[in-house]
């Protein structure tokens, strides 16, 4: 790609920043990091230890943030035991699968 296209696009970004209020800037920043609020479904029977005996069947959390993103596809361990893997169902829904 022509470097000039990249440089022009960055200039547009900088100009856009100058027109944004601090609140707009912060809001965009939050949105970039966290995205929309999504849901993580946890199958209580299979993740009994994880749930610490709480009868919660569904957690509502922020998706696309670093804490949840780093778990996708990776084994989740807690209390010294392997719990399962988190998989991405779609952009808004993550699901934990049994190990």
């Amino acid at each position: 790609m022509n470097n000039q296209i990249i440089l022009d696009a960055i200039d547009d970004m900088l100009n856009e920043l100058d027109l944004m209020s601090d609140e707009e800037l912060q809001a965009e920043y939050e949105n970039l990091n966290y995205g929309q609020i999504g849901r993580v479904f946890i199958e209580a029977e299979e993740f009994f230890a994880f749930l610490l005996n709480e009868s919660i069947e569904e957690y509502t959390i922020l998706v696309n943030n670093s804490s949840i993103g780093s778990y996708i596809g990776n084994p989740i361990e807690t209390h010294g035991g392997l719990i399962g893997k988190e998989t991405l169902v779609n952009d808004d829904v993550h699901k934990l699968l049994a190990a």
Partner: protein
Amino acid sequence: MIIKGTHGTCSSNADSIRANGFTCSKVALRGEGVYFWGYMSDELEIYARDLAIAWWRFAKKRGDYANMANQNCSVIFVHLNVEDQDILDFEDQQIREKFIIFYQKVFEKFEGKSEIEKISDTYNRFVNKLEKSIGKTFSMLHVKVQAPKRYEKMLPIDITGQPSCYVVRDLECIEINKFEENKNE
């Protein structure tokens, strides 16, 4: 083209990478990605290898591997398959200067989070906005970074500048060539 790279980590992590491939660091000083010390000539492989080992020493001292079963040093050698236009080069003088201006405009206005998270987010934000603006994604970033403190320089006087680092965002680019465990470290 092919860029070669090394990645230093503990042997437990290396085993995980061998089994499952690399996963992106979510928070790091140049944003999200997998970090490699880059080189092109085979003659300089030892230079990149030493950088990877020096990084492992630094990370181990910091406690990054404290909970790992095997904390030995492993170096992973890779080929990064990429086209020139798919690299966003932060060492390009103009891009570098524009990023500094961007950073100054946004960094202090971000609230919350730690310093390193803010830096990482600033890089991510810059690259993501740029990608959206021009309608293409970058497979990797090229940055120059300070060598780890325990790295022994190749030359008695540092006339070569800081080493090149590639921050790979598209993991499809990565072709693992070999693993090397250094039990003497």
